[in-house]
Each structure stands twice: as structure tokens, then as C-alpha cells.
């Protein structure tokens, strides 16, 4: 390979996804970034994006949407079923569940998002480093990842958080991020491995670019869509895990979040007393958000892997227009 000719190969590495945009769609949604247009053109991820953005909007607007102080005890109003005064009813202590769920949306999403960001930064760094460097670096990181995958996450988190003196948001973000990176690192390492021996990387190496530059300017831009997909996956898992820890009474119990509301419902045995509202509403909020994220992931999968889409025979006619890659040979 000649160094001079190889140098010019690098800029020609265009992300694959560009070719998949159908021209009709591109014209109809101008001004939006490419990745968003792609996601919006798939019915699953469009639905998912709508749900998730809706939940984020609730979180942002929490101070205006909440009708009561979520911590205001009032034994006169205890155990009320949903009504116009209390949309989601009240708890055994008479606190307003609607306000708790609305404020909880803000805190739960923040906690999940922050923990997922930390986990993704760790996973992307370690995964890409392992794949690119190879050799003993790869062995070491891969080994550490596998060990972490064998130690069950939830029990580890339970034990760790039981040692914490105060379980504030920051410490919860830290322990969640530090336990959830492993499987994401594994995914990203596998994907970075497939890129490692592409021509443009070899070209950059032959041209004498330093390792950090190849990783940051050559590998990263081509990994961005995969990192984003892994982030959505970890976001969904950290949301569930954080809510689960709070449900067990091991989270930041002084704040408002879905898990905390669920914990009090369980401690007051709401279910056994036939009260469905203390656990249904926070649970549905969590399940809906998770469903939105799962739909985004499913859409992402279909956009990047044409084989998973509905077979063309099925979709011909009125539905076919909704699917990407229609009319194109598999």
C-alpha cells in the first residue's frame, strides 16, 4: 500500500445510512437533521420518539403541571380514588399522586439520563480502545467486561447502596453508571472491531496519524450511530434499574420519583387493600417511557437492518409507503 494514495481514502468513508434515505421523505421534512428524519420515517421509532419527547415535556413542565405539593400530608384526604381534585388519587398519607408522578418524571428521567451518559462514556472509551488497540489492552478490557457481566447487577447495586450513608442523586448516578457500563462496552467493542480493519482506518494509520487522532476523528464519527443506539438501550435499563432500586427502598428516598411512589404503595400494602391508583399511575409512567425507548430501538434496528422489516409482499399498498427501502431489492 502506498502511503500517499492511501491518505486520500479517509475522507471518502461516508456513513452507510446516507444511502438509505428515500428521496420523497427527505423533501417532505426539510431542516431536520438526517438521523431524526430517518427515525421519523420509521413508524415504530416515530411512535417511540413521540412518547419519549412527551415524557420529557412533562418533566420540564413539572412545576406548572403539578396541582399540589407532592409532599403535603393531609390525613383528611387519605386513600382517595382518582377525582377532579386529585387526578391520580391520594396515598395512605393523603399526598397527591398526580403531583408526585409529574415531579417524579423530572427526577426519574434526569437520573436515568445522567447514569446512562456516564455508562456510555465509559463503555465507548473502553470498548473502542479495546477494539482498536487489540493485544493485551483488548484482553484486559474484555476480561474485565466479562467478569462484570457475571456478577449480577441488581444484587451488587443493592449491596452498594446499602453501604451509602446518604443516597443523593449524585451518588446514585455514580453507582448506576459504574455498574451498567459492562454490557454496553461489549456491544460497542464488537462493533468497533468490524470497523478496525476497514481501508480508511488502515490508510490513516499508514499516513502516520497518532492513535488518539484515529480513534477520535476516524473511528468515532463512524461509530456515532451505534453509540447512540447503545445509549438508548442503557438509558432504558438505567431507568428501570433506578426505579427498581427506589421501589426496594434503596434509592434517594427523600426526592420525588416513580420508584419512591411505588415503594410507599408497596410498604402501605396498597394492592392488598384494593387500592390500584398508588401503583398503577407511576408504574404506567415508567412502563410508557420504557416502551417509547424500546420502540426507538426497534425502529433503529429496522432502519439499519433491512431484513428485519416486514416482507414486501405484506406491506404492499397502503402501508408500504410507511416503510423504508420499499421497492428496493433486499
Amino acid at each position: 500500500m502506498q502511503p500517499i494514495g492511501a491518505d486520500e481514502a479517509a475522507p471518502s468513508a461516508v456513513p452507510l445510512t446516507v444511502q438509505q434515505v428515500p428521496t420523497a421523505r427527505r423533501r417532505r421534512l426539510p431542516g431536520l437533521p438526517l438521523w431524526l428524519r430517518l427515525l421519523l420515517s420509521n413508524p415504530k421509532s416515530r411512535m417511540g420518539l413521540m412518547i419519549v419527547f412527551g415524557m420529557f415535556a412533562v418533566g420540564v413542565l413539572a412545576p406548572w403541571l403539578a396541582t399540589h405539593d407532592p409532599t403535603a400530608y393531609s390525613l383528611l384526604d387519605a386513600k382517595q380514588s382518582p377525582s377532579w381534585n386529585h387526578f391520580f388519587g391520594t396515598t395512605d398519607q393523603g399526598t397527591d399522586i398526580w403531583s408526585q408522578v409529574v415531579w417524579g418524571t423530572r427526577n426519574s428521567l434526569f437520573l436515568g439520563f445522567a447514569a446512562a451518559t456516564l455508562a456510555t462514556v465509559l463503555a465507548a472509551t473502553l470498548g473502542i480502545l479495546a477494539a482498536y488497540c487489540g493485544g493485551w489492552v483488548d484482553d484486559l478490557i474484555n476480561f474485565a467486561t466479562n467478569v462484570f457481566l457475571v456478577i449480577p447487577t441488581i444484587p451488587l447495586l443493592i449491596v452498594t447502596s446499602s453501604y451509602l450513608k446518604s443516597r443523593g442523586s449524585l451518588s446514585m448516578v455514580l453507582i448506576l453508571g459504574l455498574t451498567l457500563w459492562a454490557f454496553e462496552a461489549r456491544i460497542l467493542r464488537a462493533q468497533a472491531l468490524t470497523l478496525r480493519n476497514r481501508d480508511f482506518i488502515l490508510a490513516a494509520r499508514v499516513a502516520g496519524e497518532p492513535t488518539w487522532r484515529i480513534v477520535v476523528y476516524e473511528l468515532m464519527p463512524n461509530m456515532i450511530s451505534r453509540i447512540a443506539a447503545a445509549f438508548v438501550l442503557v438509558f432504558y435499563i438505567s431507568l428501570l434499574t433506578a426505579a427498581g432500586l427506589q421501589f426496594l427502598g434503596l434509592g434517594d428516598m427523600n426526592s420525588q420519583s416513580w420508584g419512591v411512589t411505588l415503594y410507599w404503595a408497596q410498604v402501605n400494602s396498597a394492592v392488598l387493600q384494593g387500592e390500584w391508583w398508588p401503583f398503577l399511575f407511576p408504574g404506567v409512567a415508567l412502563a410508557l417511557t420504557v416502551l417509547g425507548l424500546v420502540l426507538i430501538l426497534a425502529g433503529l434496528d429496522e432502519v439499519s437492518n433491512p431484513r428485519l422489516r416486514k416482507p414486501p409482499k405484506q406491506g404492499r399498498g397502503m402501508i408500504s409507503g410507511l416503510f423504508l427501502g420499499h421497492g428496493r431489492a433486499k
Partner: protein
Amino acid sequence: MRWLLRRCCFYVFALWVAVTLNFLLPRLMPGDPAGGMLARMSSAQIASNPGIIETYRRMLGGGDQSLLEAYFSYLGQIGRLDFGISTSNYPTNVSEVIGRTLPYSIFLVGVAFILAFVIGTTIGMVAAWRRGGTVDNVVVPTMLALGAFPAFFTSLVAVYFFGLKLGWFPLQHAYDTELTPGFNYAFLESAFRHAQLPIIVITLAFAGGWVLNMRTVMINTIEEDYVAMAEAKGLPDRRVMTRYAGRNAILPPLNGFAAQFAGAVGGLVFIEFVFSYPGAGFTLQQAALGSDYPLTQGLLLVFAVCVIVANFVMDLLNVVLDPRVRTA
């Protein structure tokens, strides 16, 4: 054979990491867990157990030993399976508490996980074989939606509807509280009746993952030449699906078993908490809330061992199912 040996070495190392994490965590955390625990015990309890202060110092740190010294005496103690005395079940030993609660959990998660695997992969296989059929269009989305819901939420809803409103299943506990555990018909029947709903919930929660994995791999496998060849030979449809496409497609999902099982062990904690089921998961939650550190340490180690053993069994199964592993 060499491959299995390497796996064994890996598992021993993973176990060592779990033990070391157990040792380091209380020492890295701010505060003094051992001091906090001793402060909660009455002076009579401390007086009646002469070695207890030393035991807790050894397990949780804060003594005057150096870190390395403390580490080796800790390893020795774990090697003798001595986790100390559980403060929330005083004066019972931690190993005794674990021995009492673990069988319930193993029963629950063992049955549910095997059911989830069998049902999930079968549905995934059939769905991919008949793309766009009833199974693919109705059953798969339902399973995925159920699997996406948090397990504790599904179980709360299940307790409310099937336990409280319809009265089909008992609401809580592992057996009727009047009965004493033992090998007699009344107890086993009661235990079985109480386990039904938790098992159904865990199965539904984890089948979704298998369905998705299996379907994805199967869709790719179907396009292989040997499947077309089998069809061309005129083999019965079902035989091609199970023996040709299915058997090959099942290997990649099997390799995701480690993460799935670790997840199931975690999900177990929530479901046992909802059902107040006296297994190891519920005990772990209670111990963590009550700062019963000897018990939480012991249970974390037990959970890690369970996942490692399950992984090892799956490795053995992999050797049976995939001839390529045997020669490697």
C-alpha cells in the same frame, strides 16, 4: 477440553473478583459500617458473643489491621464459609439464613427461566419461519410489550387482578403460614399453589428477550443454503424448521444466556419483594434496608456463585450442541 478448562479458570477469577468487591466496598464507602452495626446491637448481645466485634471488624473494616492483613484473614473466613451472624435474624448464622431461603429462589427462578427459554425460543422460531403469520403479528408484539414492562410493575398488576380481584392465586408468601415446611403433601401442594403466579410473571418478563433474539437470528438462518437444500429434498416443513434452521439459530441466543440469567436473578429480587416470598431476593432487600451487612455480603456472593454455575452449565450445553466448540 482446553476450552472448558479456560472457562473454569475464568469463573474462579470472577468469583475472586466478587469476594474482593465484597471486601473492598464497605472499606471504600464513607463512614464506618462496622461501627454503625455494632452501635445498633445491645450491650447484652455483644457481651454474649465475645468475638463479635473482631468478626465485624474483619468483615467490614475499621480495625487496626493493615489492609493486606485484613484481606487475607477475610479470605480465610470466606473460605471457611463463615459470614458471621446476621443481625436482623439474631442469633442465626448468615449461612443458616441463606440455606433456609435459597431453595425457594432456586425453585422459582429455575422453573421460570427454563419455561421462559423454551416458550421464548419456540415462539421466536415459529414467528421467523412464518413471517407475517398470526404468531409473528400477534404473539410476538404481545410478548415484547410484556417483557418491556418492569417486572415489579407486571407482578403488582398480576397480584391485583388475578390474586385480589379474581381470587385465582394466593396473594403473598410461599406457603400457608399455618403449615410448617417439610416433605408432606399439604406443604408441597401449598408451596406449589403459591409459586404459580410468581413463576408466570417471571416467565412472561423474560420470554420476550428470547423471542426477539431467536427471531432475529432465525430470520438470517432461514436464508442459508442448507435450509433451502433441506426444503428442496422434500423434508417435512416442521423438521426443516426445528432440525435445520432452529438448531443452528439457537446458538447465538444461548451465548447471551449469561446476561439474561444475571438479569433474571435481579428481577427475582423485585418479584419476591412484591409477593413477600421468603426467598434469597426478598431477604437481600430486607437485609439491605436493615443494614444487616454480613447477610448482604453473603447473599451477594451466593448470587454471584449461582450465576457462575448457571454459566458453566450453559458452557457444557454449548459443547453438546455445537460440535465446533469441541475441536477448538
